[in-house]
């Protein structure tokens, strides 16, 4: 096995060197006669077929690695296509990074250590090294971000690059069944640590964004690449973060907090006065219901003094909670 793999790798290295060195397009027959590992008798149909299959596989492998194989004919008299690699398309352009820039790239490549494109980040960094960039593996930039991506990240970014439509199942938490969605993906956004894909939803005929963590199963592409054109001057963040400004908290409530309790409430409060019953604090809030839900979590440690809308919301919630049947036997599971 090792020797097969070795001779195959050797053949591919020689093929790359040969095609980089030639200016003329070389036909498959010329390559077979030149590069070691392709030797065969072209007159023998079976041998010739085997060679062609091998050569097709090798070409596919080079293209998968990103080697730009050009096809063309050496002259107008040739009917058979030939192959070559243009050095300017093959090579990483010269890149000069200052030490601090190289350090930044080194730190950046490390961010992927736990996720998706880790292998691509490492091989990319190694290409920069081969291009002469010295990367200090111990450099830091004060803080270490850790990239965590959902499995859908890779197929979606690839589809957005190729401009290829995708299909996936999507489940929002308050829905029972995932629904199948069709999307022309424009791009992927990380917003406040969560990943989203933005694009044109062809079922809804409108731009939509989807959270990657809610995609169920795999993302499949459909149809041809270059199937659509994203809008010009696209602001991906704008689609996700449109309504995500800081929450306005115009209202003030007063609460009584038992001494030494409910630290989670105290952190956001202004002390007003201390009494024997506890501490009177002031808190800002947006609207009474979600504010009440938060306060109820602290149970008897927090009592709302006012305003009435908050006091009533808290009491109503507490009364409902006290009425929830608490014996697990009271609710036998009915069949789903």
């Amino acid at each position, binding site marked *: *096995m090792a020797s097969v793999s*070795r001779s195959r790798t050797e053949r*591919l*290295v020689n093929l790359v*060197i*040969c095609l980089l060195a030639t200016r003329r397009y070389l036909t498959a027959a010329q390559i077979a006669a030149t590069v070691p590992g392709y030797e065969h008798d072209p007159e023998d149909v079976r041998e010739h077929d085997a060679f062609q299959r091998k050569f097709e596989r090798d070409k596919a492998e080079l293209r998968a*690695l*990103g*080697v*730009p194989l050009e096809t063309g004919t050496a002259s107008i008299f040739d009917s058979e296509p030939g192959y070559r690699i243009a050095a300017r*398309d*093959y090579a*990483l352009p010269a*890149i000069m990074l200052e030490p601090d*820039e190289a*350090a*930044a790239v080194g*730190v*950046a*490549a490390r*961010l992927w250590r736990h996720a998706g*494109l880790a292998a*691509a*980040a490492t*091989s*990319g960094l*190694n290409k*920069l090294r*081969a*291009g002469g960039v010295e990367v200090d593996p111990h450099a830091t930039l*004060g*803080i270490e*971000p*850790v990239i*965590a991506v959902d499995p859908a990240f*890779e197929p979606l*970014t690839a589809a*957005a*690059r190729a401009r290829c439509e995708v299909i996936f199942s999507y489940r929002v938490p*308050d829905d*029972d069944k995932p629904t199948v969605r069709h999307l022309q993906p424009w*791009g992927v*956004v990380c*917003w406040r*640590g*969560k990943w989203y894909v933005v694009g044109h939803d062809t079922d809804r005929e409108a731009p939509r964004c989807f959270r990657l963590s809610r995609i169920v199963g795999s993302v499949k592409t459909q149809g041809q690449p270059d199937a659509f054109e994203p809008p010009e001057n696209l602001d991906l*963040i704008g689609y996700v973060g449109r309504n995500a400004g800081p929450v306005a908290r115009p209202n003030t409530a007063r609460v009584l907090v038992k001494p030494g309790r409910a*630290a*989670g409430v105290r*952190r956001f409060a202004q002390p007003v006065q201390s009494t024997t019953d506890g501490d009177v604090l002031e808190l800002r809030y947006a609207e009474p219901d979600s504010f009440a839900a938060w306060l*109820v979590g602290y*149970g008897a440690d927090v*009592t709302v003094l006012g305003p009435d809308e908050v006091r009533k919301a808290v009491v109503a919630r*507490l*009364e*409902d*909670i006290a009425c929830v049947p608490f014996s*697990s036997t009271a*609710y036998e599971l009915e069949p*789903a």
Partner: protein
Amino acid sequence: MTVSAPARLARLLNLVPYLLARPGIELAEAAADLGVSDKQLREDLELLWVCGLPGYGPGDLIDMSFDGDRVTVTYDAGIDRPLRLTPDEATALVVALRMLAETAGTTDRDAVARALQKIEHAARLEQPPPVAVRLPGDTERLANLQDLLERGKALSISYYSAARDVTSERIIDPMRLLSVSGRSYVEAWCRSAKGVRMFRADRIDSITELEEPAAPPAGVTGNDLTDGVFQPDPQAELITLRVSRGSRWITEYYPCESVTEVSADEWLVSMRVNDMDWARRFVLGLGPRVQVVEPDHLAEGVRQSALAALANYA
């Protein structure tokens, strides 16, 4: 171990220009730099030695000279430059740099921006990677934490623990500053807990710098964050809640052991809980449309808390 042929081919094509740029490099250094073993590197060199230009005579093959453990490529057969970046490689580097540029607390933002520009240029992309990053963060707070970490002293902090709903004083030996999913953490040895802990930056309410240097015990390493920052203890008590549509969001915010549909409108959600007081506050906060199925003492605790709170309003 057999490496896939394409991966090895990519490595070999990269190795020649890498060595060419570093005449006389020590093999061990090159292997460490490229993330391969010494043995792999030697095997790669042996293979390259028999590759070269058509003709494949002594003057056509890739050639190297060795001086002890040092190697110099003396003939490259035309592979003098690395292969250009693939779209995935370009995306990986560009997205990570954008992430760095967006992370509050990155010290050398200017270098990150310059590097980003150069990489995008070198990648020769038809279009920039279709990925945008925006992270929130309290830049001032993080800059302050960074200064403290750089000065390397132990810290006395006042920290709010949401699990226990208390703010307590602790002495910590900071190890590093991390940003995970848009949240910043100080990873440190906690002297009170005698263990490595992650402190959320936004829950550190005050900090005092101590005279003594930060000194985490020898051999202590950072957490493996592969599965996220919060990993529930598999030994912790299991709670099961019956939740309706309005509370199903909890399954996205907390690691759950199982989520089972019991009717068109209700689910059973099970999760491991380290602290029953936290669970009681959690269920109370979720409100009346959540029912505790197990354990009984939690259901009873929630009800008693609600009754006790109601007594305040009587």
